[in-house]
Structure formats: C-alpha cells, structure tokens
C-alpha cells in the first residue's frame, strides 16, 4: 500500500485525487461557504453531494478505492445535528467498522478519512481537506488496482511468481 519510490520519481508533479462525499445539509454547505468566503483549499478534492453521511454505503468507498482514487473523505453533520435526526449516528457505526477493517487488510487509514463539518465551519473544512491531501500525498498514489499492463493481461496460477 505504501508508495513505491520509483513511481514518485517517475511522476514528480503527482497530485492526489480525492473524492469527498459531503452531506448536503452540513459539510456541502460548509464547503460552499469556504469557497464563497474565498478561503483557499487544495484543488485535489472532487466533491460528491450526498443527502446524508448515512447515505454513504461502505460499498461506495470500496468501489472508489477500486476505481483508482487516491483518497476518500466522508464528511457529515456533527453528532446531534443530523437533518434526519440520526443518519450520522448510524453512519458512524458503519464507518467505525469499515475503517478498522480497511486498516486490517492493509489500506492505510489515512486514505479513507471521516470528518464532521457543519455549515458554518468554513475554516475547519479547509483544514480537513488540506490535512487529507497532505496525508494522501505522503502515502503516494493508490496503485492497488490499476488496469493490468496491456499485453500481459493474463492471470494464471503462474503469472506473478516471486
């Protein structure tokens, strides 16, 4: 999971791609405010608006990793502030298990991060994004599931032999 030094050398100007799942009531509005307040934060995040952090199925996160995104941020309302009363409480349980499992199978927890950002926390949003980007940058690109090399696209019991 750690970046291979060769790759970093190969692509000096590499910038991580981060997908952010933002709850529309808090974190998305927070991101909006960050922007309209002209607070700058790294441009590495692609924002996906979700109705609630409770909508983020762990499958979304797995699939995003599989598609080659370098990092993921899931952000929702602070506990107690959920527009749907308890969406974030439910989400928190799922994320707790998911993040421990990902760590156990060898996905660095810094790649998949979670935060609570309210609609007014413009500074916190910028800070969280900067921190996630810095973490993922330090980890290097997600090379887990790239397309196999063209021409050697065969998987038999012999192919990868140490």
């Amino acid at each position, binding site marked *: 999971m750690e970046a291979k030094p060769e790759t970093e050398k190969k692509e000096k100007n590499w910038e991580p791609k981060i997908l952010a799942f933002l709850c529309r009531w808090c974190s998305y509005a927070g991101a909006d405010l960050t922007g309209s307040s002209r607070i700058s934060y790294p441009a590495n995040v692609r924002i996906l608006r979700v109705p609630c952090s409770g909508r983020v199925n762990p499958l979304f996160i797995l699939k995003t990793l599989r598609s*080659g995104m370098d990092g993921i941020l899931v952000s929702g309302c602070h506990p107690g502030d959920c527009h749907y009363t308890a969406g974030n409480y439910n989400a928190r349980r799922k994320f707790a298990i998911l993040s421990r499992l990902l760590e156990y199978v060898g996905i660095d927890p810094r790649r998949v991060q979670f935060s609570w950002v309210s609609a007014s926390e413009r500074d916190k949003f910028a800070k969280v994004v900067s921190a996630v980007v810095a973490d993922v940058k330090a980890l290097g690109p997600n090379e887990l599931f790239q397309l196999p090399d*063209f021409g050697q*696209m065969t998987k038999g*019991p012999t192919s990868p032999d140490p």
Partner: protein
Amino acid sequence: MYRKITREKLRKWLIGLSARAEILVPAKMNGLWTFRLFHNQELPQNFLNSRIPPKNLFFEPLKGLLGWKAADGSFQVNSCPAPEAARVIFGLKPCDARALRLLQPVFTGDYPDVFYAGNLSRTLLLGQACRVQCQGSFCSEVGIDRQDSVDFDVFFREIAGGYIVRVITEKGNTLTGEKEFFEESSAGEWNSAKEEIRGKNEIPLFNLEKVKAGARERFPDEDFWMRVSAKCINCGICTYLCPTCHCFDLCDLQRPGQGVRFRCFDSCAFPDFTKMAVHNPREEKWRRYRQRVSHKFNFFYENFQTVACVGCGRCVAHCPVNLDLREVLLEMAR
C-alpha cells in the same frame, strides 16, 4: 519410442531448457499444489495433482482480449497479442492433458481462438504417470489410462532412481534426443515398468456407455434432477475446478481514456448465467445442474463424440456439500 533418464539428469535437462523456455513444474504455494515457475529445485515426488486444473494455463481465468484508447478525437482498438513465448510444463497428469485435448475442437474448430491455440502450440507437454488414485476420481471409468497417455509430447513414468519415458511427438523426440541426458529404452522395458495404482477402484464404478445412454434418457426426468440437485448451493467450485468446463463471460473494464475487454470464467451454476431481458431459461437450480451434467455426458458427446469429463475428481472432493457426481452418474447408468 522409449527413453530413460535419471532423476538428477531430468532436473539438469529442465535447467538447460529453461534458457530457451519458461518451465513450469508442480510446486506448493500457500498449501496448494499448483504449477509454478521452475527455480532449478528438486522435483516433488508426492505430487498427486494440482487443486486448480492446468486448464487455467491454456484457457486463463482472466485474459485480456483487446484494449482501446481514446485520445485527441481518435479511437483505437488493439488486439492483445496471441501468446508465443515457448513454455514447458512438467508433471501434468493424464486426466488434465486429455481435458486440454477435449477443449481443442471447441476453441480451435470453426472460429479458432488464437489465444488457446497459441497456448497449446507454444507449450511442450511433459506428462507424468499417476501412482495413486486421487480422492473422488473416476478416471479409468471414463477411459483414461493413468499409466499411459498419448495426449502429451513426452510421457514420464517413475521407476527406481529416475523415469522411463515414452516419446510421443516429433517435438518431444527432438528435445529428448540429447544423449547426455537420455538413454534409449524399449517397449518391453516400458511395459514392464507399469505400476499398480494405489487405492484404485477394484471394480469400475460404472459403465460409460450406460452413463451416456442414461444421460439421454434421464434428461426429461425432472424429478430425478430436482432430487439430485436439492442440496446444491449454486456455487461455482465444480465448474471452476473442472479441467473441461469452459464457459466464459466477456467483461469490460474502463478507465479514463482507455479500457480493456477481458474474458473470465463463468459458471452454469450461477442463476444469471442465462438470464435475459425478459426471461431466464435456466432459472431453476435443477435445470442448471442438469445442464452441467448433460453438457458433459450428453451434449458434448453428441457434438464431439466424446464425453467432456476426465474423472479427475476435483468436483467430488471439493464440493462444499459433497454432491457427488459419481453417485449421479451411477444412478444414470442404472
């Protein structure tokens, strides 16, 4: 033509060949027997057969067929190259080699598949005789001689200190003609080196002719198929471990600007295998199980005049619920 070679010389011969070709030999990996790259090691003596059939080295479980690239308004499709690099596989068992031959007309008949054909033509098949009957196997019942075979280039039978060798093809003859490794032998010596198989079925389990007839007769018998398939859990173990199962799926993988079309295994045990927009002709479990058995013992025989089962016993030994194909065949033969 018959030759002989000592155990140590065989290893040296393979080491010599490895300069010209990729050599695969039986080796244990994560506790499973499989065919791995040869690292000049001693050849194993207790190898029965690989868990995953060597079919996977010819008809790969994941094979890129073609790829595409879109750039600057142009769109290009490129075929994956047919495999060419020379390869030697040592230690194949007669059942698995027969399976490779069975698949030949499917893949290289009309509309020849360059990938399968290429894998066959680039590979030198070195077989090894069995000494033990594998768990769940019924190879002799489907007409396979565990001590002799012509489905290889060269067939090895273990004798004290080494091997006696039956040379079958011209390619095999050229390669085993090197005097420093092989010495000449005779048919007499070959015949006298025949061994008894340990743990073999003393009485054949069934008569293949009766099974074939039974497969046709039993086909409409829905109750029979429902009964025998009741405990099946619809997993793909029997098909994915089968050396003759060859159903596949085509699947695209897309990344920004480029993509690859892969071939991967598919299984008639899966409900979605034949699912179409409005209906699924094999929705029920018994129909799918019937398809698997009938394909092997009825349809394949009708199309290619041979049954598509080599009796390796993998599906019997590894079925999660012990759905024993031998019992089904036995009942069909009745």
